[in-house]
């Protein structure tokens, strides 16, 4: 027993060292960029999971919250030199306002109203960004003005620092998810997902709980969006404020496993590299997006609990493997 525990601690230590030292082993900015995307999509997926996985209210507008973070961060830096770490506060506030408006209108009713409203919202914000050209530069997008490397302004010569920021983001998100799981809102939300009638009969104020969860999800996504924008250094409305981006975030979480604290990260590390491969083999953006759609549909049909089911302690698969091992 002590030998097993020692082996476990050793392997975990080796894993942590390998993870932290990976950029220096790989040395290729392209590969590091893919890893950063994996990490950020994992973090976005975990934020999405808070309202859509635990709550069952599937939200297709997280791209809007990322956009809020992105545009706030970049515009405040370009115009006033405000550090993105401070812009996080404003973008979180804006995301709170937006999610409250949407939530107050649609959470009073059951059914697909929330999902429909979120899809429509994505289009509206995108159209607004394109319309107010003088303010947002329209379809030309905005980019971060690079004036030399600076940590507080998230300007770096290559993407290696964003790898570590990504790791911190994922670790923080996993922590937040676990805290949320055990909080009162988290329990109420999962009760609502299982059986809304029973939850109401127990006196849970369903609309309020769903609203709180979507506010938390939105605020976290916007905060992450600030960092993601400085990683991309260029954003424009048609890519970052599109339903396609929201679907990608959702797919990552669904494929990895909704309702778990780390499923989205697993999903991200599986899907993002595969889509890089697909876009090389099938050409252009079409191949990559096709893979997102296929993965989403196949997971929902075959194993709605996602890939994390394979690691679930109670799953039937695990007991089958254990039976084989004994023989």
């Amino acid at each position: 027993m002590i030998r097993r525990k020692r082996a476990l601690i050793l392997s975990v230590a080796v894993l942590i060292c390998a993870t932290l030292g990976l950029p220096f082993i790989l040395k290729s900015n392209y590969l590091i960029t893919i890893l950063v995307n994996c990490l950020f999509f994992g973090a976005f997926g975990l934020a999405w999971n808070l309202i859509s996985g635990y709550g069952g209210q599937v939200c297709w507008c997280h791209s809007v919250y990322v956009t809020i973070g992105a545009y706030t961060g970049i515009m405040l830096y370009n115009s006033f030199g405000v550090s993105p770490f401070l812009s996080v506060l404003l973008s979180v506030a804006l995301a709170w306002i937006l999610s409250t408006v949407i939530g107050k209108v649609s959470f009073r009713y059951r059914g697909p109203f929330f999902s429909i409203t979120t899809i429509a919202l994505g289009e509206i914000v995108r159209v607004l960004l394109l319309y107010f050209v003088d303010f947002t530069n329209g379809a030309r997008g905005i980019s971060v003005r690079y004036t030399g490397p600076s940590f507080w302004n998230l300007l770096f010569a290559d993407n290696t620092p964003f790898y570590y920021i990504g790791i911190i983001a994922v670790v923080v998100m996993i922590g937040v998810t676990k805290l949320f799981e055990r909080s009162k809102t988290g329990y109420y939300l999962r009760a609502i997902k299982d059986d809304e009638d029973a939850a109401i009969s127990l006196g849970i104020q369903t609309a309020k709980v769903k609203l709180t969860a979507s506010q938390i999800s939105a605020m976290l996504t916007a905060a992450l969006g600030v960092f993601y924008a400085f990683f991309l250094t260029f954003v424009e409305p048609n890519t970052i404020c599109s339903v396609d981006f929201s679907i990608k975030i959702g797919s990552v979480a669904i494929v990895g496993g909704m309702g778990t604290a780390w499923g989205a990260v697993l999903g991200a590390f599986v899907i993002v590299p595969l889509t890089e491969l697909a876009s090389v083999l099938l050409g252009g953006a079409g191949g990559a997006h096709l893979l997102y759609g296929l993965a989403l549909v196949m997971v929902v049909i075959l194993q709605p609990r996602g890939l994390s089911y394979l690691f679930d302690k109670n799953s039937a698969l695990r007991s089958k493997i254990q039976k084989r091992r004994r023989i």
Partner: protein
Amino acid sequence: MWAFVQSLINGLLNGGVYALIAVGVTIIFGVMRLINFASGAFMVLGMYLSWFCYSLFGLNCYQTIPLVILGCATIGYGTFRLTLVPVLKKNRQAGLMVTVGLSFILQNLLLILFGSNPLTLPSNLSTKALRIGSFTIGLPRLIAFGIAIVLIIVVSCVVGKTRFGKQMRATSESVEISEMLGIRTNRIFALSWTLGIVLIGIAGAVLTPLYYVQTSQVNIFRNTPIIAVVLGGLGSIPGAFLSGLLLGIIEALVSTTLSTDLGPLGIFLAYLLVFYWKPQGLFGKGERIA
């Protein structure tokens, strides 16, 4: 004043096509309680099928309609058997996610097959117009509106008066009791889905003289019909029809008074307003309120 009436006319004609797609979506919802987020993708599929028939056989867009019906019915039924049958008995979110994924798959499959260049189906009607007084009514728009109205009337008759329509209405009220009465609900699901997809595909075919055939149309045509369905009351065919027309008018008025880009904004604000005051829609039978 003239601009107002002219945009009213244009909006009404546009609304007819929105109404057709909305009726397709509302039939699917009424029978299966499934919002078809892939409606925009199937509409663009209809457009591409129409263009494909044109490039193979040189037919104009109205002559391609029978082939588009065939193509959409086959592909619709195929996607239903492959992706939706496993999910219908599961919870609501599963169906939602599958249709979103389906929309993504179709859109990008078409992108890979046909490329991202905007294609056109030349039609000798695209520049002709009717003049009534000082107002112009574009002929392709009018024909699209006419086809949409005829199809909606036909579908209403099918749903209201035929035995098949009765079975559809029974299934939409209660699946279990319909099964007990001997209605083969799986077949009703498949046929309703195919009917909805065919309507949406025809809408795509008749729109080819007016819009470029490219996959970016998917996003434009996905939101408005679904909002029309919710506005009109989920599952109500006359509701979807009238809301489609209404949204077309709102979009046209906002486009001419404010800016073309803000058309979708007007639709969304209208949706929020109506939804806040009357959540079951203008003609809705009343979904359960939390």
